[in-house]
């Protein structure tokens, strides 16, 4: 771990070197009234005045639809072509927030629980995160309540904290980060000893995470799930914008003798998620599905993978058509 300083021009220089190196660079771009991650070529395209992108950047390592393998059938026999990791390009995720970077830990935990996921790991290996600390936050942010914070380094390769002079404090955190810095080593100067916490957003602590986990351990039959989920419409918006939701469906894209087995995003909010062919559905009503979402992130994952499935980014609350505010719901569980 090494701390440095980079000036405004240094940033421009470094960014153009990254682009010149042929890596794909994704950064938040304001378009169609939304700020989303998009491939960029110049620093000028990167959005400035915004709190949070609508979607997380998990699609860089866990795309919304990807080919697990393809195959071709010839007179009863089948030729299979496996996923080729070389097709994954070097990628830099520029101006990610700490809650996005922190999301990679639970994702990696799920995708490497006993069996390792070749596709996920191939993407992660070629991805470098340049995270920017948060100078602003809003009512939906609660990273500080889930072991995170506006300046948290977890999951990042390089963490920049912007300074009033347009430069930034640079924390180089991993070998990947070091390698990326080396693309324009001269742009980096020695640490100026700036106090990083002065430039971080204020995100008040909303609840005690361990208390939430303890209460949830016995909350399976509590009426809270029905009360909270009455207005939930059962769509997948919360799961798909979430940086840590990793549930997926496996489908088949077959045309004639050729076909591909596809992995695509799925959500525990849908009834089809657990429907048996016999018609029996263990989670037939929305309150059971809302319970599964909360218990999985705040109880099952910590128990089984010792990592929480939430980074407090607040995207699910902002994206929800009926304002299912997870911060409000979790806080009310601690007050029950």
């Amino acid at each position: 771990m090494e701390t440095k300083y980079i000036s405004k021009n240094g940033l421009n220089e470094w960014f153009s070197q990254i682009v010149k190196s042929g890596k794909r660079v994704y950064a938040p771009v304001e378009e169609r009234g939304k700020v989303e991650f998009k491939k960029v070529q110049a620093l000028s395209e990167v959005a400035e005045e915004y709190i949070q992108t609508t979607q997380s950047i998990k699609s860089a390592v866990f795309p919304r639809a990807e080919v697990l393998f393809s195959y071709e059938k010839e007179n009863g026999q089948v030729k299979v072509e496996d996923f080729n990791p070389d097709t994954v390009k070097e990628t830099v995720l520029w101006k990610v927030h700490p809650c996005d970077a922190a999301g990679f830990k639970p994702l990696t935990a799920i995708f490497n629980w006993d069996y390792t996921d070749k596709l996920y790991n191939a993407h992660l290996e070629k991805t470098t995160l340049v995270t920017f600390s948060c100078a602003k936050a809003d009512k939906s942010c609660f990273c500080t309540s889930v072991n995170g914070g506006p300046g948290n380094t977890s999951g990042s390769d390089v963490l920049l904290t912007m300074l009033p002079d347009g430069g930034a404090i640079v924390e180089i955190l991993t070998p990947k980060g070091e390698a990326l810095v080396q693309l324009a080593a001269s742009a980096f100067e020695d640490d100026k000893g700036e106090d990083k916490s002065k430039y971080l957003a204020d995100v008040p602590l909303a609840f005690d995470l361990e208390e939430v986990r303890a209460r949830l351990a016995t909350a399976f039959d509590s009426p809270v799930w029905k009360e909270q989920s009455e207005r939930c419409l059962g769509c997948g918006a919360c799961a798909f914008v979430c940086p840590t939701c990793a549930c997926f469906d496996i489908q088949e894209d077959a045309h004639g003798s050729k076909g591909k087995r596809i992995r695509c995003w799925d959500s525990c909010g849908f009834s089809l998620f657990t429907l048996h062919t016999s018609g029996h559905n263990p989670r037939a009503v929305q309150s059971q599905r809302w319970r599964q979402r909360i218990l999985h992130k705040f109880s099952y994952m910590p128990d089984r993978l010792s990592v929480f499935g939430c980074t407090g980014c607040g995207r699910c609350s902002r994206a929800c058509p009926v304002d299912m505010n997870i911060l409000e719901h979790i806080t009310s569980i601690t007050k029950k």
Partner: protein
Amino acid sequence: MNNNNSEFEPKIVAFVCNWCTYAGADLTGTSRLKYATNVKIVRFPCTGRIDFMLLLKAFAQGADGVIVSGCHPNDCHYTSGNFHARRRWITFRGLLDFMGIDVSRIQYSWVSAAEGAKWADIVNTTVANIRELGPYTEYQKVADYLDKEDYNG
């Protein structure tokens, strides 16, 4: 026949109703009338059974043009199949046009069992129009999204 498209042979799919147009096409054959072989005919009990999505499925899998044809109004073997179909085509055509899908590649027609000549003419003109318009690559390109290399993310 314009020369730059001379080697392009349009692929046309025709969704036709069994009682009128399919019989009309038979008549075209028995009357020895020639018509372009680019068309692949799919037989339906009635135009009322032609799901609008089939047209899109045809384009997605390589068709450059589509013909949809059935009994004239009041001739329907099931009395109102073609009336329902007409409303569906009016609605669907408006929606496709609003979304920018090339509705000029879809030829709707009424062809009775006696109009063998009309059927041959419809097929020939449609093939000529589509040859003029060229392959519908714009749509097919979108269809094979997962084949492209950098689709993910």
